[in-house]
């Protein structure tokens, strides 16, 4: 029953809920005396992890970014995504944005997907049948020597299912467009063959109509304003009303002719399609439910929107994908930006929060080490997390690891009792301390992993024994108030004392009203002991350029003496999920 490490969530300060700092956090971080009730938006209120809105500002550290211009944590709510480039996932060809606007978001080269199962289609050649077979099939006599087809390697759908056979293995798109046109004329010669023509007629007709009505009405005969485009530009310059809207408001609506014949683009619906519908019903009976297309298949491409039966599905051109960068919402600098080289999965810019803000981790003081390294565990450990017993004091080690190359000063603050229904007592024994700078990754690996002030430094033998036997030499050490528990080069651990509260409301003599009872009924996750800790980090850094410090936020100010050192500060709420409280 190894107590697992507690999960830690970080609140992005961009929301009102998580931006509020406790009022007296700066005075060294003694556990705060705060009202138990949480009033949202009030200055100096504490962060309540049980607040329904808290879910929207808490993230694991790995999901956050950091803006080094604004010196702030950035979450999905305070970054903006931007499409850097479009590419085809199949041929990895980058498509310029201008081409997207004109040709749409599908690969226009030779990439197609299976209309049944969406996997990519391959082009394969079919050897032309032998002459013997040819004589048996006179209709195929005119077939070229070699023909090609699109084939799905997964479900074996081939373009032959819809009668597509290609002459060349290149320029698939062109060939398909041609085939589609000829197919349309074959299946529905009256309306579909001239669908485009009809549409052109219709647009031409209405364009002419519009032209006619505007030309006769132009009010300024010889002025430079006679061109409608000029006028529109000027009107838009002076704001508000558009050219056409203004015109409309000034003029009486001119009666406009409607298309009335086929040459003008009118296509009259004829009801004598009963044959076709009868045929559809007949086919439906034959093919059954399995022969019809699913909504997904129809929506996959515009070409298949009207396909009723599987046999009508056309190959789907591969949809393009995007690669996106993320920008800070306030200063617009890139927080992540993929490598412009297509096919590379690296990032050119990647400002991860875990490289900038200290990581907090909480584990029980007398934790039994897990039987094996969890990274190598093959099956999920199903043993339930042990429940926390109410009113039993527990001691936890809270470790703060510093990712930056400067020494940081950390102050922690947490409300005395956790807000919400279940009031648990929390005490940080040493709320204010320093954490050393991070170094090279190799320093960390080669240096001793933990250097407790009492044990590890006093000679090799004892420490070596300790590491061999796996037992700590200082089991009799007691946590003391105001003392650091453990310190390594870039991490510091302190002790956190927790007394879980009871899930049951305190017993009362007075019977409660119904409303009061409802208010006191435990909601979901009320039994989770979650501790909100306000972390304030201060450090000094050398300013990169002379103007870099100017016009920055008030969080940093120039140091008066000597070289340009800038004091920086970062503060955020952090939620430690300790576990579930037993209901006794």
């Amino acid at each position, binding site marked *: 029953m190894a107590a697992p490490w507690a999960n830690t969530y970080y609140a992005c300060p961009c929301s009102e809920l998580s931006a509020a700092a406790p009022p007296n956090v700066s005075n060294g971080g003694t556990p705060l005396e705060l009202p138990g009730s949480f009033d949202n938006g009030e200055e100096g209120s504490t962060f309540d992890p049980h607040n329904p809105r808290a879910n929207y500002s808490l993230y694991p550290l790995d999901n956050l970014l950091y803006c080094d211009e604004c010196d702030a944590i950035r979450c999905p709510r305070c970054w903006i995504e931007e499409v850097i480039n479009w590419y085809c996932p199949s041929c990895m060809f980058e498509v310029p944005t201008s081409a997207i606007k004109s040709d749409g978001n599908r690969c226009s080269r030779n990439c197609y997907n299976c209309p*049944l*199962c969406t996997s990519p289609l391959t082009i394969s050649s*079919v050897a032309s049948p032998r002459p013997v077979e040819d004589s048996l099939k006179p209709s195929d006599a005119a077939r070229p020597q070699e023909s090609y087809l699109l084939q799905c390697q997964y479900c*074996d759908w081939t373009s*032959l*299912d819809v009668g597509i056979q290609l002459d060349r293995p290149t320029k698939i798109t062109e060939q398909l467009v041609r085939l589609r046109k000829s197919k349309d004329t074959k299946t529905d010669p009256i309306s579909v063959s001239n669908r485009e023509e009809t549409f052109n007629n219709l647009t031409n007709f209405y364009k002419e109509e519009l032209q006619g009505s505007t030309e006769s009405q132009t009010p300024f005969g010889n002025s430079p304003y006679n061109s409608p485009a000029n006028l529109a530009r000027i009107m838009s310059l002076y704001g508000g009303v558009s050219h056409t809207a203004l015109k409309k408001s000034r003029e009486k609506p001119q009666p406009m002719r409607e298309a009335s014949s086929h040459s003008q683009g009118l296509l009259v619906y004829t009801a004598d399609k009963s044959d076709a519908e009868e045929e559809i019903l007949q086919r439906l009976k034959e093919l059954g439910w399995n022969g019809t297309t699913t909504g997904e298949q129809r929506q996959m491409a515009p070409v298949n929107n009207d396909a009723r039966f599987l046999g009508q599905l056309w190959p789907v051109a591969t949809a393009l994908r995007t690669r996106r960068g993320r920008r800070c919402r306030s200063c617009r600098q890139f927080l992540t930006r993929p490598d412009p080289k297509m096919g590379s999965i690296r990032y050119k810019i990647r400002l991860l929060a875990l490289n900038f803000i200290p990581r907090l981790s909480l584990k029980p003081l007398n934790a039994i080490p897990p039987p094996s390294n969890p990274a190598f565990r093959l099956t999920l450990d199903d043993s339930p997390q042990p429940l926390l017993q109410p009113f039993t004091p527990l001691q936890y080690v809270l470790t703060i690891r510093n990712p930056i190359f400067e020494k940081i000063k950390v102050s922690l603050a947490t409300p005395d009792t956790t807000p919400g229904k279940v009031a648990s007592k929390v005490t940080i024994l040493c709320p204010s301390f320093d954490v050393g700078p991070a170094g090279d990754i190799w320093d960390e690996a080669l240096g001793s992993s933990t250097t407790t002030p009492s044990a590890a430094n006093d000679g090799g033998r004892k420490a070596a024994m300790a590491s061999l036997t796996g037992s700590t030499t200082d089991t009799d050490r007691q946590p003391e108030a105001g003392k650091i528990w453990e310190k390594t080069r870039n991490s510091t651990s302190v002790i956190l004392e927790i007394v879980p509260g009871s899930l049951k409301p305190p017993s009362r003599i007075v019977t409660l009203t119904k409303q009061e009872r409802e208010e006191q009924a435990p909601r979901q996750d009320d039994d989770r002991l979650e501790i909100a800790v306000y972390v304030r980090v201060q450090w000094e850094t050398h300013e990169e350029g002379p103007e870099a410090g100017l016009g920055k936020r008030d969080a940093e100010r120039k140091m008066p003496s000597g070289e340009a050192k800038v004091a920086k500060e970062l503060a955020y709420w952090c939620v430690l999920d300790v576990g579930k409280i037993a209901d006794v």
Partner: protein
Amino acid sequence: MASTSAPAKKPASSSTVPAIKTPCRIHSTAVIADKVQITGPHAVEIGENAVLQPHVKLRAEGGKIIIGKNTTVAEKAIIGFAAGQGEGDIVIGDYVHIDAGTRIEASRIGDGSSIEVNSVIGKGAVVGKDCKVTALNVVNEGEELPDFTVVFCDGQRRIDQTMKDHAEIRTAKRLGQERTVALLQRLIPNVASKWL
């Protein structure tokens, strides 16, 4: 694991049944890799140019197993029932491709079918000719798949019209299978003699 290095006299250390040598009829052109296990008291017939890759298990515990011409069975495929788990002959046709990790308890698999990675063909099922069961799919016990059926996605079934209508595509598929066989014959050391 012990059985892999065991000599031919002890094909599988089945604890319950005393090791009886399975009566095998293996065509001289068939390839049987080392580490193939053939167990059970019933007859096993392996046809012309058939290839059994390493770690294939043929369990003739509940009935005969017949494997046709130019059929390939890939690694870790299990054909047949474990002792006491079922009865019935298993007939696998010609030009069948059985992929790695499959479990085949069907009573018949038709010519030219392919059974892909880790799929399961239940007891007594009949798979028709030129069918395809894609990876991780299941053909239920006693189910009959008509010829040219494709089982794909999450158990969807459809008839492969192209395969049905075009003999030249079927021919091309057979040709492909023949080439696969030729390649495997070159790559896999044959120890068929140990089963004769």
